[in-house]
């Protein structure tokens, strides 16, 4: 057996350093949050009509005040039908207000769709020209965002939400946000 030549260890050492970099870089990413340029940014500013009351103008301010879910949907999107039962359940059971963004769609069709499948949304932002969708970086409907009480985007999910995704990924984010807001409030009382 030949003796160990130390220079042959160099590749191994370089590799170990590389792995540490990759591992740390990787673990820094919060596993509950998908990378999105918008995470931790305020919800983009907009001015748009409400779906059932087109004379009413909605803005970013309407989303503030409470931790909420914003769901981007459309009548032409088959997976929106697929995820709809889960949205209905969330609106009834989870105590989180659900706002809709009706994306690249027609108002008449969207109203009919909600009559047919039942309406889980507090209100719906009409985004008929897709501008808000672009600002939100929407890749394809449906997409769901979690917004904190200050209107800052905390989480984004691409594709249909189901019970599993909600319980495993979204609920922890919501609970974390609730805990934080309780903490800040108590901190405020101490002062």
């Amino acid at each position, binding site marked *: 057996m030949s003796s160990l030549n130390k220079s042959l260890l160099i590749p191994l050492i370089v590799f170990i350093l590389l792995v540490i*970099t*990759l591992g740390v870089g990787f673990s820094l990413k919060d596993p509950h949050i998908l990378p999105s340029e918008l995470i931790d940014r305020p919800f983009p500013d907009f001015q748009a009509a409400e779906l059932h009351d087109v004379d009413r103008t909605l803005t970013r301010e309407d989303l503030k005040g409470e931790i909420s879910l914003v769901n981007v949907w459309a009548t032409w999107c088959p997976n929106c039908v697929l995820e709809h039962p889960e949205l209905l359940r969330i609106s009834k059971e989870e105590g989180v207000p659900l706002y809709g963004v009706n994306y690249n769609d027609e108002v008449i069709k969207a109203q009919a769709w909600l009559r047919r499948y039942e309406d889980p949304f507090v209100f719906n932002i009409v985004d008929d020209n897709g501008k808000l969708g672009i600002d939100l970086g929407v890749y394809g409907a449906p997409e769901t965002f979690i917004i904190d009480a200050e209107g800052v985007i905390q989480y984004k999910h691409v594709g249909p939400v189901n019970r599993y995704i909600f319980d495993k990924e979204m609920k922890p984010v919501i609970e974390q946000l609730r805990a934080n807001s309780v903490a800040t409030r108590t901190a405020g009382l101490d002062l």
Partner: protein
Amino acid sequence: MIAELGHFSLILALGMCVALAIIPTVGIVQKNTQLMNVSNSLAAGFFVFVAISFFCLGYAFWSDDFSVQYVALNSNSALPVQYKISAIWGGHEGSFLLWTLVMSGWTFAVGALSGGLTLDMRARVLAVMGALSIGFVLFILLTSNPFDRTLPVYPADGNDLNPLLQDFGLIVHPPMLYMGYVGFAVPFAFAIATLTTGNLDSAWARWSRPWTNAAWGFLTLGITLGSWWAYYELGWGGWWFWDAVENASFMPWLVGTALVHSLAATEKRGVFKSWTVLLAIFAFSLSLLGAFLVRSGVLTSVHAFAVDPERGMYILTYLVLIIGSSLTLYAFKASGVKSDADFEWGSRESMLLVNNLLLVVSAAIVLLGTLYPLVYETLYDGKKISIGPPYFNTLFVPVVMLLFTFMVFSPLSRWKKTPVQEFKKQWVGLVASFFVMLCLVLALAKEFSFVVLLVNTVALWIIVSLGKDLMAKVANKAEKIAALFKQTMSYYGMILGHLGIAVSILGVCITVYYSEERDVRMVPGDSVELAGYEFRFNGVSKETGPNYMADRGDVDVIQEGKVLLTLYPEKRFYPASSNVMTEADIEPSLFRDLFVALGEPLGNQAWAVRIHYKPFVRWIWFGGVLIAMGGFITVFDRRYRRVKVAKQEKSNHADGVAGATA
């Protein structure tokens, strides 16, 4: 039902590769030839079961089975049938199944075509490949099962395949790329197998050379196709972006190129033995690293796969296990290896050494540029930094220019020692190339650029020296044509590969320096001039495709008052996924491409229109194809077959003796 069959078949495939990793190993330890002999059948079984699984997924796509989640997310009933099939590898799960299929294919091929190997070596190599495959199959079964159902509620129709991927380029690009990536598992397995024997000779280099060259050829082809696809499909006329995922395929290519050369030196002269082993480990490790970067979401890129931290962690663990253990094995087993021969400066060995160093340095530059944003994010608490073309161009280009200059000399260098006059003779070629290029640039180019002159001179110089070398090989033979046929396939492979590089250099340089582009607002009837062509915009009409609606522009290309042709760039809207795609229309030709893409509508019938004039851009990919061909034809070198036949006879004889005594 079919989907479950696919899932079940994949589980059987897992059993096969577990057995393939264990049984031959036990055979080697116990010196039991029967156990070692099983490796071939296990390799075949592994391949068959993965293939069945793959066909089942294909059937689910073909039959629009949207209860399979992967199908629902990546297909649509309106999708044309060829894209339904290619959609199999349109997402993470299916593309990894393809990866595994390719892995099982290579494993099977090594088993079936390795008649020249000793039984012991074959068992070792296949056991390593089996062990590698366990990780791949487990990865699919645990984290990325494409056969998952969405029962009981499933969508009536699918989400559609990402329109970017609805294209011929996607049908062929990933399979070619994976053939290359995964193909590097073969030299890796040979290297590891040799290390485990504890006897690091150069035989493994001869065995693994054809496999390495084939894998490298596929990788070249895959990268070339990817570049071509990006050019016409992404709609902004670029052919290389230094994007993280492109880099992920480019790094194994650079190291693979070094390996291809280093293997030659190890095989022929018995030098660089432990270095070549290290390169084989690196090439495959970088392939795995590429898989990690693409599929873990650790770097953001245009090639977005669905991101899942669980998968990233899995691949990282796999990476650590495989690369860590192989480098440890290397550190302990590669010591004390002596070169079989000495060589002098200027010899072919030293040329190959320089080639290796420069290629590894360039791969390191790319690696650093790719990972630095990640390191930065780690150090500066999530702050993002983007490393773009300026970094790569400043560091990478000088290194490869140096490499290209050595390419002139290395083919005519000789083993052990090269007479200095051989090198001195090359100045004729340099001067000739320089003046030819000077005339060409002055006569044809719109403006003079010294860099273009310099780079193109080197490219031409490479071609001239290749030509001279080929001439010299036949010059003092009586039968000149016969002498041409007498040259080995390896030699012609080298000629083609180097010629391809020179052709690509010409293409890259001229495209970079003489491309012209304009982004203009046009209303119907408007004209714009670019590079001597007049582009007239005739307006936009509505079109309907099988699964999309399109605005189709109509642009006449006019030269000297005559309409040469009409281009029809499109802006497509895919309702199922609500994606908008830019389909550029391109008039390709050998010396220039005309490229028109439709931007955004600007109201009142006005559109943003992007027009490119791209001289010599085809040469980039044409060169890539030549390089790949070079890699492929060396596989057919008679030498490898002769070795095999000779060994075959020997082993037949041995079997006969064994049979007689039994």
